[in-house]
């Protein structure tokens, strides 16, 4: 990174921009302003006075960009701005949640008036995938990377190069210090024992002592930042369609359908769709009677699709029915998706009794004696049905979803949601007979002088189950990122990097101590270690400032 170097009087060669010599800790003249600790009594120990690129080079555009993104202040501002915009986006529902047939351009204004209009015009109705929100999050990501590199590399070097023997200034100007004129060997050994008991790693050289523990906690912030970067990278990956399948399928009871998003490889059969609501009449739910009475509508207890998953066997030939092989059978319920070959199917929607499956009729003659009965199956939709007594019921017209237009009756769709059927009832050999129109679950006779009556005896409806189809290759990355983040946070927050130096000079012993946080605990620990020895009471020099 740098070509210029600074040689300290201890002989160590430091990078340009170093504030405290990496080896002995002596403040490097002329660089003190970099950490803003010019005439302070206490050394600014942040990042151990190492040479940070952002503080050293401020000439080129790249330097300036680097310095910008490595600043904690900028990072915090980015967080705060993201926070505020995220909050603004929740004032009104986002477009996908607006739950209205109106287009967004009308919805917000009609529903919320002027403020809604402004919300829409500012583009807040699609905030979280708008380009500027993504840029904001991306900037946080860049800040995470640069911030971490700018600090981690020099800090690691400084902690690696630190020597046991420090410069007296370095020890004296630590925040919490003490000193003594004399120190008996016995007490020196006691201090060492106590340090060991407190899990300090002790190194000695020429009467100098250096005790250190929990250096790894210094890496906590960088580890958690890596976790976040992994998560953001996963989010970028997820933007590519190949990374995930996201589809929806409606399957009627008894129906077998290809599962979308699976390259026509998998089929699902809905064997049965069942649902259950809480019922205050039932023993099991009687404890909820009060809540059920007050509820606005029935409260769903369970929705369940009994499904069979098939895989296509061999090559599919276009236009031919594929050969299917059952690979899985099970139930799909909310909170319990069915999984196969990396795909998951979630119970997401239901169309309860939305379609007519079978409608049964009977035909009565004069004096109400029954002539015959038959069942119309909406899937088969036969052209004619022969009754036991030889009569024929001809289906003249069938409208699965009946509606009336200017041109008369027609069908809105091919799904039997509101079937209308026109029948002709013929005796054997006849061409014309009495006509009946089945609509709205009722029968209208179309022939004026009919001696026959037709009536509906039974209606069987069927439900459709709505399933979301998901496959997501990015999930493991998110999970790994989250785990790394948690490890980093715990590592950084619950351990403290503590160092203690005992430095003999010609006429006294100095003690300097440093911790990256929790001075409260550090002071307590120092008191315990040095208790009963010749050392004076520890002094917090930051209070003197």
């Amino acid at each position, binding site marked *: 990174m740098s070509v210029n170097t600074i040689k300290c009087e201890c002989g160590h060669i430091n990078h340009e921009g170093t504030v405290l010599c990496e080896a002995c800790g002596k403040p490097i003249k002329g660089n003190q302003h970099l950490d803003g600790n010019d005439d302070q009594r206490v050394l600014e120990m*942040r990042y151990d006075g190492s040479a940070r690129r952002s503080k050293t080079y401020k000439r080129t555009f790249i330097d300036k960009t680097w310095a910008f993104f490595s600043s*904690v*202040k900028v*990072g*915090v501002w980015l*967080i*705060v701005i*993201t*926070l505020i915009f*995220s*909050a603004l*986006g*929740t*004032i009104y*529902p*986002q477009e996908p*949640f607006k739950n209205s047939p109106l287009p967004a351009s009308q919805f917000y204004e009609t*529903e*919320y*008036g002027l*403020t809604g209009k402004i919300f829409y015009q500012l583009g807040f109705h699609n905030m*979280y995938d708008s380009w500027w929100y993504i840029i904001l999050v991306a900037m946080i990501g860049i800040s995470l990377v640069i911030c971490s590199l700018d600090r981690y590399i020099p800090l690691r070097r400084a902690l690696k190069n630190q020597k046991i023997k420090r410069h007296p200034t370095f020890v004296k100007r630590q925040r919490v210090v003490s000193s003594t004129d004399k120190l008996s060997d016995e007490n020196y050994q006691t201090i060492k024992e106590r340090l060991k008991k407190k899990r300090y790693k002790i190194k000695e050289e020429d009467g100098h002592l250096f005790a250190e523990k929990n250096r790894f906690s210094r890496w906590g912030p960088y580890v958690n930042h890596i976790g976040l970067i992994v998560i953001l990278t996963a989010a970028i990956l997820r933007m590519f369609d190949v990374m995930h399948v996201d589809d929806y399928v409606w399957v009627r009871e008894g129906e077998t359908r290809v599962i979308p998003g699976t390259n026509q490889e998998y089929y699902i059969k809905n064997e049965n769709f069942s649902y259950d609501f*809480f019922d205050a009449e039932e023993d099991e*739910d009687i*404890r*909820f009677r*009060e*809540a*059920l009475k*007050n509820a606005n509508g029935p*409260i*769903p*207890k*369970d*929705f369940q699709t009994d499904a069979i998953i098939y895989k296509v066997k061999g090559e599919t030939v276009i236009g031919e029915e594929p050969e299917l092989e059952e690979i899985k059978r099970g139930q799909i*319920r*909310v*909170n319990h*998706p069915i999984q196969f070959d990396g795909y*998951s199917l*979630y119970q*997401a929607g239901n169309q309860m009794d939305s379609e007519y499956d079978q409608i049964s009729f009977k035909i009565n003659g004069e004096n109400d004696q029954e002539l015959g009965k038959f069942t119309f199956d909406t899937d088969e939709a036969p052209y004619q049905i022969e009754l036991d007594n030889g009569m024929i019921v001809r289906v003249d017209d069938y409208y699965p979803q009946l509606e009336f237009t200017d041109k008369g009756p027609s069908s809105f769709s091919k799904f039997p949601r509101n079937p209308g059927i026109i029948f002709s009832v013929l005796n054997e050999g006849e061409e014309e007979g009495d006509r009946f129109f089945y609509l709205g679950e009722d029968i209208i006779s179309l022939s004026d002088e009919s001696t026959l009556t037709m009536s509906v005896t039974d209606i069987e409806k069927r439900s459709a189950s709505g399933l*979301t189809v*998901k496959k997501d290759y990015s*999930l493991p990355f*998110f999970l790994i990122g*989250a785990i790394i*983040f*948690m490890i980093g*946070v*715990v590592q950084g*927050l*619950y351990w403290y990097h503590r160092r203690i130096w005992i430095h003999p000079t010609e006429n006294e012993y100095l003690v300097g101590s440093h911790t990256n*946080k*929790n001075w*409260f605990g550090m002071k307590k620990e120092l008191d315990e270690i040095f208790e009963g020895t010749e050392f004076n009471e520890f002094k917090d020099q930051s209070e003197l400032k």
Partner: protein
Amino acid sequence: MDFYEISSSLLSISFFIYLIAVVFFGAILGKKRDERQKSKLTTIGIILTIIGFIAQVASFIFRWMEAGHIPVSNMFEFIYFFSMCLIFAFLLIHFIYRYSIMGIVALPIAIVLIGYGSVFPTEVTPLVDSLQSNWLYIHVTTVALAQAILSISFVAGLLYLIVKVNQEVRSKETSYLELIMYFVVSVIAFVVLSFSFGAADYEAVFNLPENGDYNEISYTLPALIGPTDSELATTDHFYTGIEAPSFLNGAEAARKFNSLIWSLLTGLVLYGLLRLLTRKRIGAYLQNKFGKVNPDVVDDILYRAIAIGFPLFTLGGLIFAAIWAQEAWGRFWGWDPKEVWALITWLFYAAFLHLRLARGWHGKKSAWLAVIGFAIIMFNLIVVNLVISGLHSYA
């Protein structure tokens, strides 16, 4: 007595025990720390808090037995569980720091929360299908505990501000502190009003025409603000005749707005009375009372609470939440308002940690941030559930 009644009685008992405990904690105010620690009053206060806590836990268990699922599935239950966690966190802090004076702030907050929660329907509710998962136990309990621990940082922050804000002259800081006091008083006003009018079975009904039919909206507080384009059906009830502004949408919005106005007005009256009685800013009055508090310890508690609460919140509010969302809805993140506000909470405390650890924001700055953090948590709990609808508005 069935489980439900036992549970309700136990909750009332614990509520009153907490109230008595506050009195004991209040009695130690103004004493030096050493005296406080030795004082019998402190011991009694703590013992009472523990008894109250045990009663509340027992009440929770009975309710669990009644409902057949962990009672954290509606507004009443969540707030009730949250207040229980707050007491737990307070006791924990007490046994680590032996700093009982926190109780004088923590307990009243827990009491107000229990009161506020009890305004919502208290009957046991069935679990809708999407909540029927073991993740309900894991996700909701971790979030409640994390938020309670984060609230302890608010308790510490408030204590810090009461002690450290200069009350000799009026300043922005004293005004904001008064604002916090006013909010607390308004919440108390809301609870008291709801229970008083509830006890009197007050109900004013409005008819709101909708598609040629009438929609009935019932008010449990006298109507200062009625629903837009509506008519008072129970004409013998009080009504100012002022209608809610039309931008307040939804049938319930006007009723909630009415309650809000009531709370703020009654809060204003209560606050004014307090000012008259003490002849000082409430903050100044409290500062006198609190006097001898070591701000360094309080600041340390504040930080420690966030250092524990933040990772726990990340785990419960984001990671567990995402895993459950993936299992229930097939997407781990969907920008649902509750999710966004969990992210906002997380971002806020992340910013807090950066400011404190990298930029040295200690003391008062930290304390104000802790107050804002609590405001965000309360916003997510109350406003997001009641005003901004989304997948989480089960209450």
